[in-house]
């Protein structure tokens, strides 16, 4: 039986996949970045239809900022951000294809073979979910999340440090200068 919920999930799932395809079908870097954003937003909407309200809203919120930042970097560093030269967005096709298939199979394998425990007949209401999530984050999963948080922070600091240009970056220049 097809319920409204299943319809929504299907719809947003397809939308997500479609926007994912658009990422590579467009020539414009900015469109590409925002297509990725809407793909992720559709994913968030899928969570919402699955009654995972907090997760959905969080996904929708976080992705907007992240993808916008990506867009700005695209425009800053790409020579042709408007896609006027009709540059192909795909490269390293074989590698990507292999990587894509492998990760898809892995994800499916995880979904199928992991023991997810007993299926809840009714999802707890959204308020209860928030409470449960909070307790979970400060309980069993605390270490995982704190580790992840610290790792991300470290990565951010490291990335900033790396971004500061080194004094000498061109090896050729160095040799040549030495010579003269």
């Amino acid at each position, binding site marked *: 039986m097809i319920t409204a919920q299943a319809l929504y999930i299907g719809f947003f799932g397809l939308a997500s996949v479609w926007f994912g395809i658009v990422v590579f079908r467009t020539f414009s870097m900015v469109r590409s970045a925002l297509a990725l954003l809407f793909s992720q937003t559709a994913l968030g909407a899928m969570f919402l239809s699955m009654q995972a309200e907090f997760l959905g809203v969080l996904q929708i919120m976080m992705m907007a900022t992240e993808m916008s930042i990506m867009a700005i970097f695209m*425009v*800053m*560093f*790409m*020579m*042709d*951000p*408007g896609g*006027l*030269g*009709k*540059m*192909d967005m*795909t*490269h*390293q*096709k*074989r*590698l990507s294809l292999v990587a894509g298939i492998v990760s898809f199979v892995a994800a499916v394998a995880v979904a199928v073979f992991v023991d997810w425990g007993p299926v809840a007949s009714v999802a707890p209401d959204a308020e209860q979910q928030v409470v449960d999530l909070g307790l979970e984050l400060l309980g069993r999963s605390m270490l995982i999340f704190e580790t992840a948080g610290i790792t991300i922070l470290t990565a951010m600091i490291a990335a900033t440090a790396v971004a500061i*240009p080194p004094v000498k*970056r*061109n*090896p*050729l*220049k160095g*040799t*040549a*200068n030495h*010579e*003269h």
Partner: protein
Amino acid sequence: MIIGARPGKPSKLRRLIAAAMARDLTTFIIPGPEIVRSYGLDIDATGLKPVASPRHASVLLVAGVTSSALRDAAAVIYAQMMRPRALFALGAGELSPLPPADVIAGLSQQGLIQGVRQLRDAFAEGAFRPDVSDFDAPILHVRIEYTCPMHPEVVQNAPGACPKCGMNLVPREVQADSEYLHTAQHKAGSSTDIPLTPRPGQSDHHGINHDAAVEYTCPMHPEVIQSEPGSCPKCGMYLVPRDAQVESSHDHHDHAHSQEHEHHKMDHDAAIEYTCPMHPEVIQSEPGSCPKCGMNLEPRKTQDIQTHEHADMDSATDHGSMDHSGMDHGDMVFMSMVDVTKDLPRSSDGLPMEWIDAPFGPFFPGLPGGLLLTLTLDGDTVAGSDARPLTDNLDLSQHPPTDSTSFVRQLAGMDPLAPVAYRLLAYRALENAAGLDVPAGTAAARIGAMERERITSHLGWLSLFGQQSGFNWLMQHAASLQLAFLHADVTQAMALKPVMQALIKRLQRTPLLKSRTAGIGRLTADTALRGPVARASGVNNDARSTETACTTLGFTPVSREGGDALARLHVHLDEISHSLVLIEAAGAIELPVLADIGDVSGAGETMVETPRGMARLQLTLERGQVIAAQLETPSTHHITLIDSLTEQQSLGDALMAVGSLDLSPWEVRQ
């Protein structure tokens, strides 16, 4: 009826909308609000709403006689406005290439008020018309040329593929006759879809600023040639630029394919290469001069740097599987942003971005009207600038000789922002040449008039400062004070004193004002500086110090340290206070007519401290006629400072620096 009506049959709904439009007239002011106020026009009082973008304006207001370059720019603005749009000329004379004005009025407040009333009627009745002809002007004509997004040096007249990388060329518009006017890079027609500014990342590719065709090659693998900077797919070394040879750019495709079979077929002819002593990255196989600095290249052996050979040849393992159909850059295998952008010019923030030219002016809100400032933007940072006045340059060569009255009229009409100062300058030079003495009473009255003009001019600048920095209260308050002072006599001026002092006090307490201006546009003390700009840098340079008439009234030059926009703001405020004191001491504000200088011959030289600084005039009289004259004005030097003041500043700071110079494009001598 208005010429720029929106096409459409009048219906009931449209009549209602037209009535609403008549109540809500927005205007774009040419040449600029501060100039229109110096004519004594109070736009605010008529209910016209000034707007910042031509797209949002329904009325184009042209006040005073404008130069042909300004009219061309105005035609572009008119074309950018949305229909229904009306042209309102206030004492504007010749308007072409603009269409005939819908409403014409004299250059007076009376004319303005009546004109606005007529405009409202015209909108209410004729905002929509079924038969509307399109607006067209030569300045709006463009031709399409095609260029490669990656190789800005590739420009063709027909579409096609880039000979260097095979990408599709993209069209861009350039003005049909290659005039410099940047505002007119927009295309036109009546369809009014002309962009306000050229497309970022599209029409103006300054990303790679090579004049000549340059291609990139690997020092180790001469067979690797690509049109992009980047790293060698074989060894990962940085590619070095060299001048492209015509053949090599054609068979680029082959190179990409045959690379793998040519691993060891290298450097047969590269035993000696030539490099620039200053730019080691310049390497060519033939002697010549450096494309960067023009020095002769020096020969050297390639062996010197071959130690890196084959360092990491495997970086191109995936090369074979790469799809060559779309394009075949050697370095597209691993597209490293660091490599792609490493040769781009960097701004102070270190981020290489595509450069775009954006016009600011000649009617940009917040900059002096008539000044065309073109900024090359690197993101939000200014990478380069070009400033030029589009106003007419007054010809002072005097052929044939002019009599003194018309000479004075010419000079007084030159700069709408300082008519009194230049009139006085002409008076003084003529008197000096004729050997006339000025009675003390006249001299004091003249000082009164000069100081009143200084106050109005400084208030106009303050209003512009408020407009640019989004300080609405200051913009409005200074503007209304400017109008109040414009024709004030001594008693009226004294009555305005407390208001003026309150304004100054308020500015001292304004939050964010200091952080907005401190350290911006810093100028070190330099004797070439003039007026408030000089005095803000601690240079005590004021022509009034040398005038006994001034010093007897108690004049002491104002001076501040710092040389930044904040110091200039303070100097302007201090001078307003001091001018009020001088007006009070002078006791009269009058610019008496010039006495008959008679049939004399001689040479005269004089200077006047105009609101913007000292102006100097030399003239030669022959039998009462001016036969030669030479004029030096403060803005002529100040406009040349823009380049260094804006360089590597963020956009807001750069505009603030330009604004703080208090330029008058009208007095710039070209």
